[in-house]
């Protein structure tokens, strides 16, 4: 699983935030555009792109994009 691709997929769920804002250490819940609908879109994206089921718990438990990447990557290799 490629981190850069993950960040791009993550960023694609946002419409207003500039792509340059998204890095491994971005604290995504602090972004102005962050909303519960985007949270849901991230869950759906992970399911579609990586065939991994995550829920609100994983979003709540992640502060940075890197945190969520680690969770998804761990599940991918299981």
């Amino acid at each position, binding site marked *: 699983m490629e981190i850069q691709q993950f960040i791009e997929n993550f960023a694609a769920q946002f419409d207003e935030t500039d792509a340059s804002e998204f890095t491994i250490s971005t604290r995504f819940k602090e972004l102005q555009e962050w909303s*519960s*609908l985007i*949270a*849901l*879109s991230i*869950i*759906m*994206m992970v399911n*579609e792109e990586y065939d991994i089921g995550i*829920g*609100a*718990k994983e*979003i*709540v438990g992640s502060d940075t994009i890197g945190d969520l990447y680690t969770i998804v990557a761990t599940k991918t290799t299981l």
Partner: protein
Amino acid sequence: MLAGKNVMVTGASSGIGREIALVLSKQNANLFISGRNEERLKQVFEKLTCRDKSNYIVCDLTNEEEVKSKIKLLPTLDGVVFCAGVNEFVPFKFISKEKLENIFNVNYFSVILLLQKLLKNKLINKGASLVFISSISAQLGVPATAIYAASKAAINSTVKVLASELAPQKIRANAICPGIVKTPMIGNANIDVSQFLEQEKNYPLGLGMPVDIANAVVFHLSDESRWLTGNILMLDGGFTLQ
């Protein structure tokens, strides 16, 4: 209030359906409860009072062949409560044919096809009451509920048509649209439970409990509501007032 009435409740193994079964049982109805999870359904059945005249039917209502064979276990019914349902929050951009089919199969197609078979096989008595557990989502615009809301809106439309088609036999059809009710479905949904609970401030009478829905069902099934048909009841603790 319901003594001697034969009532079927679908989706009775958990949440609102479970509570409906328990409350109807206290009103001495003979119950025919269905659900997919045998263990949980049995647990509900064990709590019913009129067990000698009641039964539980393990059935996947989305499987038409199974429904065809399982309805043979039913007596003629004085009431049916359609409570089986699923919810998944899906942002519009992520809607797929598979998700549409999953939600509509459970929330709409299986409901209609079960009732069609009950009617065709003359298993619904004259004067019976059909109660559909719908949702206020059908009338709102909550983000990510397009499929769920549409499936419940489809139920609401069907209720009106059924009410006029079945009126000659004095069979009544009504829908109850609950607002947010504290059930396991909240925890199973793919969004944070706290988002539901935060909604409490928008409910003048607070969030609903399963018994609030069950009590309304008792009235709908009883002869006291004999003049009520084709109605869509908003049961939401005042949420839609605002």
